[in-house]
């Protein structure tokens, strides 16, 4: 099958016109079918993927290349290597789960699912683009449906959250666009937007011949501009405050996508563009990055402890967990960076699960105040059990996927930054604290009589969560199955970064 | 008696006509002013024709004067007809009250 990658990216978009062929109430089926079909046609991508190819600087797989704007040298250039293929897998999985989580949408269904499918295409596009302009295009397209999904189908303060999200991300991407243009203009050798070529040239000793900017070296300024653009997405302290608001206001499925996939686009950007293009600056920036990672971990966990809203708590736990990804990337040792990508995947599945589960209780009780529940375990045993599994996964219990990635990251980071790693370990303790504390207040204790008629999880809700649970356990026991996809690429990337 | 005398009389007549034309409110009076203006012009033509040094066109001015007399007669007929129509329409012929052309 030729052009398989393009098919994978655009199949969700193809689904959009079909939404108008169905009654509005049935639109969700189209969305579900589109995501599932997308998943199915992507299967050859994973079965035919050559795990021994390095990628990063060359030898991308499933490459497609078409001229697009020849006068600018922009191409429709897509392809995957180990780093992106795992993210594509994650996006496809989360897509299906989120489609199922959208089952309860009852307002402008067609518009909602059209936006949802467009979002799916944009996210996949970001992960396959190998041309800087194409990358930027998908990156920005993604903002558009997200803005409406939060702004129209969100909670009470949705407009505030949507605008905050939109402007914050846009502010970051302006710098990113300028940086991309600067990279193109001062590229070593011939001007190009081809990021693989650029990384290859840098790796072979090419230098950006840009002038000093505001008295700082060119590469540093460009690096920082890119970094801030991606850091807002991750999000890294102090750029994280859009996240809790966006999560709290977004509908469940969108929270799932937001935490499951969108946050990874930031760290993916680090790995794909930001760091390999400027390895020397990365070297200079590394200590600072580690400091940010540790702040993210500990600060995020402590803030999570202080939250009273369940969804906000999970949002802050995302901040903490993404700190681990940063720690691994910052350490840039083989274990660290492999662990980081594994953590990106695992955090995607685990946090998706958490948001799905919060959505379950929100749909029934119409609020998320932790203190407003109590004793739910006696009326909704299935829900309590599934939630306990998800919480334990988030805590990083061995045997589940989160542990493997955290352990790899800690091992990798410990090679270079011992103190930071031990402080990051504190985050694990706080992580257990906020999760268990919340769990106890929601599920244990005397039953809050207001909720004595609460119904347990229904089939659709279970169908969206159970596959994720299976993935979490599977990757806890056989993580090599996933690590195998990206290990070669990342070991090579680690060598590029820290030589 | 030279050209200047004729011209002086003509200018006086013209000024008189102009003043009548501007200051009088009655349309008939204004028409009479116009007659004065025309006759002032005719007098000018005749005077210039009489004193012109060229022998080839002695009569040009006279011809113009005859034309003006004819034109004045025609004008008076038309204008008086208009005045009568105006009077029929508006029951008066005061020029300052007739402002239907106001922009």
């Amino acid at each position: 099958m030729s052009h398989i990658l393009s098919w994978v990216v655009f199949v969700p978009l193809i689904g959009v016109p079909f939404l108008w062929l169905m009654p509005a109430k049935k639109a969700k089926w189209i969305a579900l079918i589109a995501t599932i079909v997308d998943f199915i046609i992507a299967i050859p991508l994973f079965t035919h993927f050559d795990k021994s190819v390095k990628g990063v600087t060359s030898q991308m797989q499933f490459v497609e290349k078409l001229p697009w704007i020849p006068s600018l040298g922009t191409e429709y250039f897509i392809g995957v290597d180990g780093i992106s293929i795992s993210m594509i897998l994650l996006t496809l999985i989360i897509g299906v789960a989120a489609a199922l989580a959208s089952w309860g949408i009852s307002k402008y269904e067609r518009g909602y699912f059209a936006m949802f499918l467009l979002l799916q295409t944009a996210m996949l596009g970001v992960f396959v683009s190998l041309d800087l302009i194409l990358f930027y295009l998908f990156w920005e397209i993604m903002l558009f449906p997200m803005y409406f999904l939060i702004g129209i189908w969100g909670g009470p303060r949705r407009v505030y959250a949507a605008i905050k999200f939109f402007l914050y991300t846009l502010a970051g991407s302006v710098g990113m666009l300028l940086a991309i243009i600067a990279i193109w203009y001062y590229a070593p050798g011939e001007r190009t937007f081809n990021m693989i070529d650029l990384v290859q040239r840098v790796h072979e000793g090419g230098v950006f011949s840009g002038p000093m900017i505001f008295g700082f070296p060119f590469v540093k300024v460009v690096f920082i501009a890119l970094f801030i653009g991606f850091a807002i997405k991750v999000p890294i302290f102090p750029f994280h405050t859009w996240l809790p608001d966006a999560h709290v206001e977004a509908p469940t499925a969108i929270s799932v996508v937001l935490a499951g996939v969108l946050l990874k686009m930031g760290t993916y950007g680090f790995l794909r563009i930001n760091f390999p293009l400027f390895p020397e600056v990365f070297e200079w920036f590394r200590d600072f990055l580690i400091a940010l990672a540790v702040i993210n971990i500990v600060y995020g966990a402590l803030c999570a402890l202080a939250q009273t809203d369940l969804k906000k708590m999970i949002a802050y736990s995302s901040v903490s967990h993404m700190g681990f990804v940063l720690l691994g990337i910052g350490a840039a040792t083989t274990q660290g960076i492999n662990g980081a990508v594994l953590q990106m995947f695992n955090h995607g599945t685990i946090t998706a699960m958490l948001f799905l589960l919060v959505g379950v209780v929100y749909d029934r009780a119409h609020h998320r105040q932790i203190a407003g529940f109590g004793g739910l375990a006696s009326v909704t045993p299935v829900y309590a059990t599934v939630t306990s599994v998800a919480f334990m996964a988030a805590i990083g219990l061995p045997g589940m996927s989160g542990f493997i990635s955290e352990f790899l990251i800690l091992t990798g980071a410990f090679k270079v930054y011992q103190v930071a790693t031990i402080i990051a370990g504190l985050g694990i303790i706080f992580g257990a604290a906020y999760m268990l504390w919340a769990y106890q207040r929601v599920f244990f204790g005397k039953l809050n009589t207001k909720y004595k008629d609460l119904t347990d999880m229904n089939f659709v809700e279970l169908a969206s969560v159970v596959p994720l649970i299976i993935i979490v356990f599977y990757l806890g026991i056989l993580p090599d199955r996933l690590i195998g996809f990206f290990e070669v690429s990342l070991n090579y990337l680690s060598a590029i970064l820290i030589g | 008696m030279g050209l200047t005398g004729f011209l002086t009389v003509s200018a006086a007549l013209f000024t008189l006509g102009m003043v009548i034309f501007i200051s009088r409110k009655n349309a008939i009076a204004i028409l009479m002013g116009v007659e004065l203006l025309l006759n002032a012009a005719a007098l000018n033509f005749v005077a210039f024709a009489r004193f012109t040094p060229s022998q080839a066109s002695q009569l040009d001015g006279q011809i113009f004067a005859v034309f003006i007399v004819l034109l004045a007669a025609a004008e008076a007929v038309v204008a008086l007809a208009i005045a009568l129509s105006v009077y029929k329409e508006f029951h008066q012929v005061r020029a300052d009250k007739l402002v239907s052309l106001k922009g």
Partner: protein
Amino acid sequence: MSYIQSVIPFVPILPLFGALVLGLLGKRIYTKFGENVTGVLGCSMPFISAIIAATSFIAINRLDVTERIIRINLMNWVTVADLQLQWTFRYDPLSAVMLLIVTIIGTLIHIYAMGYMKGDKSFWRFFSYLNLFLAAMLMLVLGDNLIIMFLGWEGVGLCSYLLIGFWFTEEQNAIAGKKAFIVNRIGDLGFLTGILLVALFSMKLFGSTNLSFAEFHGNIDVLAEQTFWGLPLLEVIAVCFFIGAMGKSAQIPLYVWLPDAMAGPTPVSALIHAATMVTAGVYMMGRVFFLYTWAPHALGFISIIAALTCFVSATIGMAQFDIKKVLAYSTVSQLGYMFLAMSVGAFSAGIFHLLTHAAFKAALFMGSGSIIVALHHKQDMREMGGLLKKMPVTGYSMIAATLAIMGFPLTSGFFSKDEILWKAFIQGSPMLWLVGFVAAGITSFYMWRLVFMTFFGETRMDKHTWDHCQEQPKRTVVPIAILAVAALTIGFWNVPHFLGGHSNFTNFLDPVVHDLSSSPMENYRKLQLIKEKDQQESTAQTMKTESGHQAAASGHEAVVDHTALEWGLMIASVAWTFFTGFLAYIFYLRNPKAREQIMASALAQRVFMVLNNKYFVDEFYEAVVLTPIRKLFDFLGAFDQMVVDGLVNFAGFMGRITSSFIGIFDNEIVDGLVNGAGWGAQAGGKGASSLQSGKIQTIIGSSLIIFIIIVGCVVLFLR
């Protein structure tokens, strides 16, 4: 593939399977087939595991001593560059002993729980959790590398959390479970740091690592040369590991969770918080004993902690009235004994005490559970008394177990505790011995106090309860009796030489756990000497056998005959425990007046108050650790909301202010200019149009004026 290799993987997998089946289908089975089927299903998996453990134990005994380490590699786990972890189980004498303890006591307690949990609507869930616990514990025991051990380590923590909070409708239980989990996590962070250190240096020095114990053991003398932050690496790792053990095995200062954990159902207390999980720390130290032979300072530190724990918790045990709390503090104290043994290099003695303690403490807890059920969940000993008549099997079993724990001659506790005290004296210091000796007396005192208050004397309970209380069904009391018999007899496995035995247990463990023959410090010096000699003799010799150097180190010195001293100490401790036991008899049974007289004094009152409140440690933690952390996160939460997000919102606000200014500017000035131009044109047009008054005379007049002006201009300027 030998028998052992083929069956051992099933030992943890079967209970895991049981947990899954019960967890997913348990409710259906329970409602359809009832309690007995569910219970039998729950017991069957541990039972099969126990059979496998027992047969494997026989099989390993038939093997040659050198072949008794069996590693079973199942598959890869995580392989990233130089870190290569495998799913590998390790069956050797140490894990064989632990397997026996865990599976047999586990099975007995499962059977016991069928009686104890009778009528509970979450019966199936309880068995699912118990099965899961066994799976995790067996994983911990069988793990061949540090990470599998850590997996089990955290897994048992999870199950402990779930089971402590089993009756979750009581907020208090849930809080106790959470406390246990989080305190354990603090210890786990220490353990994890130790593992990271091992991984770091193994990868750095040897290229790659699988973190297995065999590899760690083989590399130990290379690692011994390393320093970390200027400290000897192995000392640091040893302390880190011990911090993990502190959490799991409830040592000072992380012991606070264990007494609270008694909120769980009694079978849980017996299985997890007495017999198995809490001894994981001891097991772990035994597993990596080679590390501790190289870390004498860490051992010194451990000995202080262990002695303190042993003594402090024993004193607290004297002043508790909740029967389970007494046993809980007793457990903490006995764990202190085990660590005391480990800390003086008597590893096998520690493990042996683990074994005997598992038997007698499980029996005691199960006995107390039996009483609690009979009295309809009353746990206060002040409301008991005279129960021996009503509950003979429970009563005699508990008395047997009490004899064992006090160290009555020839019971199991006698052999194990005596060995520890002796080793503490000879390889540690007389001070350590003294602390252990005093604590042994206190143990005897509070245990007999418990027995006398519960089973003897006049009953202090109300008539209704008294009439209704009766001996529990067979499924409850038979396991207690079995364990009581074990508690009495199991000690003969390790009869020391001076009593005419052969220390069979120590010898059995010898292929994997070597005791030190002298104090840890001396032993360390010897090890270093041997190493220096090695290096001088042959630098080329790189082959390392797993136990080469240690065997050399524990080579026999000039044997000094200590038999007389051993006898002396033994008689002293027996006499001392008899004395304190007798004291308990006087105070609590024969002459309570004497006790009341003593308690009347202000000093005794104050001491009692302090002990009864557990030295106010919980309050201390609350004030010094928890409150600041709570304040911190509340502050940070507000900080995030107010400052960090505030900045963002402020930026947005400033943007809006600026934009409204610009809006005003735009409206008034920029747009004003445009409007002004329009207005001007309009005004001009208005003015001009007024010329067009429609009055002929005005028109003519004005055109005349304009004509004159134009002509004037032409005449004046253009001529």
